[in-house]
């Protein structure tokens, strides 16, 4: 089993770069995420051979080729199932699932909710660019309502999934959000995801410069990003804004933005983030906050402890072995009713 703590081995991000030419479009948000993952892996410091990066199909899913680790570029939608198999079979590996909004939430939706339910110790990097990039621009389950795309020439008529709400609906023990244009924060978030035992879902808002350019602009735009990005830290107050004077409070009506110093609000009134609350309700509210009315929550929104599947399985096996008289095929074949023909 992997230990929770950071190991001593010294790597730099460069150690995680493979010899393959990176083939995403210039300007694609995926480049930055690749960077952040390489940094995070170096920082985490597991022996390189213990990392396995598993993806489906999509632009983002080309990821494993660019990593100098064990890697598997699977088939569309099945990253979650393949990764589940890798981790269950070989729990000592640190398994990173790389997947797109189409790969994870359209064709791979079922594996996504089930790996979460089982709480297998995986890091799911969900590259949400709100579009099918690789197939050249069809709407995805996260495309905004009404958007015109190649397959919705008159605008979509489908409500997008809220990724955090869906994941927590399925029982997620860890949910975080990161941005392609903040490598430092993304790196930190990935390190925290790895530290979590269980399925860590990280929604990464990435920009597809070709087919959904600026889809996250309402959040990332320089002009107002400080007022629309709330960086959560467990145990810290939810304060944000250009002037660091905005905060979140929780009242009967749910979460609300307040200004410190206005209407008698002081810092003491601001909600302290408790990522470890078993009850997912407040985490869902946080994950569901949408700009411009509310800031968008970034960082670790939820990280609660629970049994992981692969550990539970190994424990059951140990218990069963200890309790059983059967330790080999010969034992098994000779067990129960048998008779001898002379």
């Amino acid at each position, binding site marked *: 089993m992997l230990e929770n703590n950071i190991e001593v081995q010294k790597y730099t991000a460069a150690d995680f770069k493979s010899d393959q030419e990176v083939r995403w479009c210039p300007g694609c948000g995926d480049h930055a995420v690749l960077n952040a993952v390489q940094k995070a892996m170096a920082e985490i410091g597991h022996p390189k051979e213990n990392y396995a990066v598993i993806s489906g199909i999509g632009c983002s899913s080309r990821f494993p080729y660019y990593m100098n680790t*064990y890697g598997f570029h699977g088939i569309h939608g099945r990253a979650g199932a393949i990764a589940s198999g890798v981790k269950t079979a070989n729990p000592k590996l640190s398994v990173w699932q790389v997947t797109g909004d189409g790969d994870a939430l359209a064709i791979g939706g079922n594996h996504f909710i089930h790996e979460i339910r089982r709480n297998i110790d995986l890091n799911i990097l969900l590259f949400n660019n709100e579009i099918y990039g690789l197939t050249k621009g069809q709407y995805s389950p996260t495309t905004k309502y009404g958007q015109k795309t190649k397959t919705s020439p008159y605008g979509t008529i489908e409500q997008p999934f809220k990724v955090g709400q869906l994941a927590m609906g399925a029982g997620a023990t860890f949910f975080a959000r990161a941005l392609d244009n903040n490598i430092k924060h993304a790196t930190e978030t990935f390190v925290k995801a790895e530290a979590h035992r269980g399925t860590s879902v990280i929604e990464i808002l990435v920009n597809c410069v070709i087919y959904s350019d600026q889809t996250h602009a309402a959040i990332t735009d320089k002009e107002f990003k400080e007022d629309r990005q709330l960086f959560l830290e467990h145990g810290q107050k939810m304060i944000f804004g250009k002037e660091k004077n905005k905060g979140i409070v929780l009242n009967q009506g749910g979460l609300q933005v307040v200004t410190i110093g206005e209407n008698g609000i002081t810092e003491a009134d601001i909600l302290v983030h408790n990522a470890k609350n078993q009850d997912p309700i407040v985490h869902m509210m946080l994950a569901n906050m949408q700009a411009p009315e509310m800031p968008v929550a970034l960082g670790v929104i939820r990280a609660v402890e629970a049994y992981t599947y692969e550990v539970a399985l190994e424990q059951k096996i140990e218990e069963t072995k200890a309790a059983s008289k*059967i330790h080999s095929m010969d034992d098994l074949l000779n067990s129960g009713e048998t008779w001898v023909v002379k």
Partner: protein
Amino acid sequence: MNNKANVVEKEAVVIRFSGDSGDGMQLTGNLFTDESALFGNDVATFPDYPAEIRAPQGTVGGVSGFQVHFGQKKIHTPGDYADVLVAMNPAALMANRRWIKKGGTVITDVDTFNEKNFQKAGFKTEDPISELKLEDYNVILAPISTLTKEALKDSGLDTKSILRSKNMFALGICYNLFDKPFDNTFKYFEKKFGKKPQIVDANKRVLQAGFDYASNVHALPSYRVEPAQIEKGKYRSISGNQATAWGLLAAAEKANLPIFCGSYPITPATEILQYIADRQDLGAKTFQAEDEIAGICTAIGASFAGNFAVTTTSGPGLALKTEAAGLAVITELPLVIVNVQRGGPSTGLPTKTEQADLMQALYARNGESPLPVIAASSPSDCFDYAFEAGRIALEHMTPVILLTDGFIANGTAPMRIRPMSEFPVITPRIAKNNGSKYLPYARPEDGSMTREWAIPGTPGLEHRIGGLEKMATTGTVSYVPENHQVMTDQRQAKVDQVIVKVPNQEIIGDQTGDLLVIGWGGTKGHLYDAVDELRIQGYKIGLASFNYINPLPKNTGDILTKFKNVIVAEINSGQFVNYLRMNHPKFDYHQYNKVQGLPFTVEELKDAFRKLL
């Protein structure tokens, strides 16, 4: 021992126990089978459940059956027709009317003969015997319920509990009929109900009462079936599904790898998953996936991660796995895919048997996507072919499809227990870090085409694989046209190489002659009996029952030349025969096909073969 005067010796006998789902017919049949096996007979059995979990009592749909064939000769099938039918109610009579051997014995509980039951069973009259034209049969109208109650009148049990043991009365009759000891059955009662001596006693009493009743009914014949001349050794009874599971576990042990089974339940394959799940004591990991796709994909992940990976399913589930099977083909990862065939198309006849997934196994993948296909042909050889599927997968780095079917999966037969030391060691070609760069798609010089398997966690062998076409040797993604041809050919050549260890196809019976009967998989027992009986009648006939389908054994073309005629018999509309036409086009093939959800009968086969003799 019964006290009848005229004991008739018989070579082999078929008994069919049948009654309502609640009547305990499976247990009854199993107990009888065990006594027969312990006595030294060879045996084969087949259960026949209703499709519904609990079909309405007293109806034909609710009848549960268990057939046992035992003999002093080698037994190859559970038998076509019953010498003795035990029918616990009118519905059981009705359901099994076609399966009684001409003039055979029918033992039925006359206490269940009443208007309501006749009606539920679909009888038009109140005289089932003449309605079913059983006048020429030896029908014993035994008052089973009454006598069971009588036997237990002082037992202190309530009527419901008492009647629950009437199957033991029927079993007692049968023990008498075949002059069988029943010590083992008594031991079973003691083991099973040890904590309830009242129940142990009741069962014993009812069984004895049945036995005694039979002694006094002179209409009942008395048979003796001597122990069979079968290979010496220790035996156990095993079903095809159990044997498949254990064969896979055995392969893992001999390959010295942990086993991982990613599956989704589906009739009639579910039990394989269950038997593997039982074996956490052997370190087996089962992953009950959310669907068949996840079943195979978790297995592929486990294979990548270095486990011996298997996935088990039936036809509709195999359909869902085909995309991922292609991924295993192109990544060249070891994987066993077990498909227990059932009646199709679509949901079809889920509880019935069929051999109609052969084309699906061979060709249901996009692109040129070859993989080895093998088939088991009896409950016990499911062990061997599951083991062999594992060997091929691991030694050749390829997914392998193992085909069984509902008939052999649910049937049971004795299996001789061989020590694991008698099985070959399986040697996966695991890559080691020897300092030079690991090339995932390098082919060794021995001509086997098998790439090396680098297990994640091994320092220095980090590499990437995937579903895109890859450059020969290095495995990096490649769109180079000529390389695609090279890799397409290499994947084919690798599967062709499997033939090196495939034994020659054996011909049973005459080695040359008038007719070669060809079959594959689970029909072997019936084909064997048909060919054997025709040979006894003097015909020059041989049988080639295939277990290796892709690649076909080396001598396949050869054996086809040795007979005047060739007939291919299958439980489908002609899939293997078409496959032979593709691979050995120079020959003429006759066909015998049947798609009824049932196994062949020996009689119909003999009729069909005789036409060509």
